[in-house]
């Protein structure tokens, strides 16, 4: 039961952005994907959400190739927390989170008790139960991201895909989103998180995959992967790496700039 990506090649038009990407995601772990802009992180997300075709290599979910899944079937297995979520006006938080049950209900079937329970559980996990009847337009930035996460959790997915979920959030909310994700992962989900912030990635993820120019350059626990030579080489700027307990701390060097 895993998400396996082998030698994945994908791109836009004539260009390939991902040249050879390998990744394995299993339940109970948070895997982070990091790398400079243009490395292929967004392309990877687009392939997993089937907006881009697989040009080479393979992606399989629970042993089956990605393109063999029906639309609803895939949505029941994989949920996405997008980079810039839209929360349409007029709907309450509960109504928005309930939309996460669509893969289980299709377009016509009415809600069942199990759907309502899944929604309640998602609201509780993300600590948004008290916001349930509030219109989505009256939420703070952090609250909105939690609601989007709740919707993804309501899908009862096995695999959670978070696409740079922390970009515009205050530190507190960045931590919240990743903490709630870790909580769910401990209960059996698998999470793939694309992140920009190396230190956040180092603290929140069990394993990291570092992409550069469409290829893996490193893969493994953060402490082993994020070394000063590697980070300096991949990102093109000098850094120092200090150990903070079991996690590395990356500090850029300004004197050499």
């Amino acid at each position, binding site marked *: 039961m895993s998400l396996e990506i082998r030698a994945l090649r994908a791109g836009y038009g004539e260009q390939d952005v991902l040249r050879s990407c390998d990744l394995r995601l299993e339940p109970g772990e948070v895997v982070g994907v990091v790398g400079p802009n243009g490395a292929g992180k967004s392309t990877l997300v687009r392939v997993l*959400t*089937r*907006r881009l075709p697989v040009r080479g290599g393979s992606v399989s979910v629970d042993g089956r190739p990605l393109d063999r899944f029906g*639309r*609803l079937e*895939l*949505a*029941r297995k994989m*949920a*996405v927390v*997008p980079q810039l*979520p*839209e*929360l*349409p*006006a*007029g*709907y*309450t938080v509960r*109504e*928005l989170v309930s*939309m*996460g049950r*669509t*893969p289980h*209900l*299709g*377009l*016509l079937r009415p809600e069942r008790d199990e759907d309502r329970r899944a929604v309640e559980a998602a609201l509780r996990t993300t600590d948004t139960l008290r916001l349930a*009847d509030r*219109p989505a*337009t009256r939420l703070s930035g952090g609250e909105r991201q939690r609601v989007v996460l709740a919707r993804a959790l309501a*899908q009862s997915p096995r695999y959670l895909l978070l696409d740079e979920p922390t970009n515009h959030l205050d530190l507190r909310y960045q931590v919240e989103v990743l903490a709630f994700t870790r909580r769910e992962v401990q209960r059996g989900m698998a999470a793939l998180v694309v992140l920009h912030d190396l230190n956040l990635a180092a603290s929140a993820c069990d394993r990291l995959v570092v992409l550069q120019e469409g290829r893996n350059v490193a893969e493994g626990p953060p402490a082993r992967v994020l070394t000063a030579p590697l980070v300096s080489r991949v990102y093109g700027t000098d850094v120092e790496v200090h150990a903070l307990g079991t996690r590395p701390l990356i500090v850029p060097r300004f004197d050499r700039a």
Partner: protein
Amino acid sequence: MARALARQGAARRTGPGPLLVSGLALAIVVVAAISVGSVRVLPGAVLGALLDGVRGHHSGTVDTIVWQLRLPRVLLASLVGASLALAGATFQGVFRNPLADPYLLGAASGAGFGASVVLVFAGAVPWLAHVGVGWAAFACALATVAVVALLARQGRGLPAVSLILAGVVLGSSLSAATSFLMLAARDRAAGILSWLLGSFAFASWDRVAAMLPLLVPAVLVLLLAGRALDVMQLGDESAAQLGVPVEAVKLILLATATLATAAAVSVAGVIGFVGLVVPHAVRLAFGPRHVRLIPLSAVWGAIFLVLADLCARTVLAPAEIPVGIVTALVGGPFFLLLLRRQRSGS
């Protein structure tokens, strides 16, 4: 008032209450509209005529006026109002834009052109006269939207911006062509203009019967599309990730809404603002959930247009104001009010 209603949130969001109340309002408005006209008929006589008709005997001028003129007219106004509001709600949902209206993809311009061609050339080309203004308008409206969809297609998708651009371009071209016809055949210009501005003066049971087979399936399809429309408000990508077949749903909904629009325009001319303002107002008052928005838009669209037609034929009696002018005069300021409410609220 709309904000207070929205604040009451949860209590208003479920339950048949609003639909029943709206239905009742429609019934009252319909009865009132049947009782009023340019010929004074006392309410008792109206009732008598209605009962007579139900019992099967029609005799006398009052019966003719009530059964052959007013009743089909009011019913047609309800059906057209419902169609336009439904189409408007659908377009606003598919394009996720509260400024969308049923004529966005060129249906009105197409219908106008088709009608003008018949009005101008029916004398010289007999089979045109046989086809008639209504069917020509209907066919041209559908053809125009089909061409717009073909122009906007990208792969298997129908991107919103391309659709709107193609709709504007084709719509403008056809409007220009219609204007040219009006100028080239000046003696028909008045007739074309009358048709374009919209009127229920020629309402008949035939037209009511022509609308029903189009409107009823459209309503059913749109009611079933409630959840899809809600989820699509999250954006095409998020909706796709939740398993919604976004492009297929868009195509079906746009086709259905276009059918309803084409039917409405072919029997009543181009009546504006109903499709734009009514769904907007209903959304502000009753919330955006489409399972409720769709049927309520239909009912309130009917109410709005029946009342507009009532004004059109009574305010300046015995002259009639084209109903499209009434909806614009009422709808325009009302829409501005809604916009201000919305801006101050959010």
